[in-house]
């Protein structure tokens, strides 16, 4: 059960650590990370496996959103199937 966590906003110290920390708490395994500056904004994309996540999808989503709010960045978690559907034929 793969998903992408995207983090977009102003770059600050500890972004990777904080997001990785939440993944660890929720037992979400990080498989790949990439980050770049796109159109002047910091953007990090993490490929994660949420099969072992220890909370419900609703709570996982709420915790991710709360962390985003705390960091002043926009953090989303979206299942891989959504990107498959939109960007592959």
């Amino acid at each position: 059960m793969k998903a992408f966590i995207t983090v977009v906003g102003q770059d600050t110290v500890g972004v990777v650590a904080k997001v990785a920390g939440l993944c660890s708490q929720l037992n979400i395994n990080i498989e790949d990370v990439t980050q770049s500056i796109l159109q002047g904004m910091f953007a990090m994309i993490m490929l994660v496996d949420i099969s072992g996540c220890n909370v419900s999808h609703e709570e996982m989503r709420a915790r991710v959103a709360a962390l985003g709010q705390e960091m002043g960045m926009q953090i989303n978690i979206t299942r891989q199937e959504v990107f498959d559907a939109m960007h592959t034929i």
Partner: protein
Amino acid sequence: MSMFNKGDILETIEMFTQENLDVRTVTMGISLLDCIDPDPKKACEKVYNKICTRAANLVPTVEHISAEYGIPIINKRISVTPIAMLLGACPDADPVDFAKALDAAGKKVGVNFVGGYTALVHKGFSAGDKRLIESIPRALAQTDIVCSSVNIGATKAGLNMDAVKMMGQAVRRTAEMTADRQCIGAAKLVIFCNAPEDNPFMAGAFHGPGEPDCEIHVGVSGPGAVRAALARLHKDAPIDQVAELVKRTAFKITRVGQLVANLVSRELGVPAGIIDLSLAPTPAVGDSVANILEEMGLEQCGCCGTTACLALLNDAVKKGGVMASNHVGGLSGAFIPVSEDDGMIHAAESGCLTIEKLEAMTAVCSVGIDMVIIPGDTSAAVISGLIADEAAIGMVNSKTTAVRVIPAIGRKAGEVLDFGGLLGYGPIMPINQRDPSVFINRGGRLPAPMQSLKN
């Protein structure tokens, strides 16, 4: 990650978070043909029980899928067999009891609208049809989430002018009976020509007699995403590139809808029906069909060139969406409601967009004169005349057209009516008040048009 392009991933996230891309509705179509009973009390009980059983898990399942996949899904709705078909079997029933049963069942399962307080009378009235139409104002005043529609014409049948007359009166009466609530009743009533039987969008959704016992339809949306894509295109790009970009964006939007349809269908064990490839605007800034037309190069929606831009948009949305989905149906195209579209509201307020221009636009959009607020002293005959005009456009052009107008009882052109939520707000638009009542009072059936010698 190498399989995925970073730009694609971020584009998707931006569409969801900044550009209001969402799945607008998951609508469960439920047949009530097995609920027909000569005893109206028993019939209503069967209706209530069938909806509550079939749709018991609809809302939690859709909400769970939305949370699991990270796809915003806004509305959960139900469409049912036209209630006039059940009413035919019980001549002594009060039709409003059926509306109340739909309202109670819809609230029990947690959906926000139930469509199907409907009669299909394009060729004439059968038992139950007239009683249902006469009861529409009371039904919409006494319920909260029930939506009503009447099909008064079809390309193969012509226009039922007796029904056209009745519907002008029904629209006016419905607004009067809900005058203390911003005339909201009239916003839940649609008069169709060539109504699709699998439309998931309200207020015109009903479950046609040719549909299966139960199925899941999905209505996609995303005017904001199309507008944002066009905003990034150079203003001197040829119009072919505009069409191509709309097609590509519609493809992506529709694929999300198809994914949701597959997931919901599998989870509920209910067959997937159709995807409705619609651009349905919301009052949110930027999530506007009018703004898309303006991005194509119009100073404001309603100016000369608007009909051509809308024709391109409507066609490109279908071309992009068809390849992205298994089965297409419903209304499919670009909606042009006024009060639900921020850009349309501004264009109407400034006087650039008039009812006459909207009527021309309905010849090439997906539906018709939608969510237009007209002065409170507009006569039933004028409303019937508007319905006849709109239906004639649909009938002759073999397309769906509809009228959903709200007479603002006690108010004049230039004032505002505010429904709140997705239904939005809008200025009261002036409409030609000259009297067509001799034409409307003739009744009868306006003949079906030639389907050859087209010019």
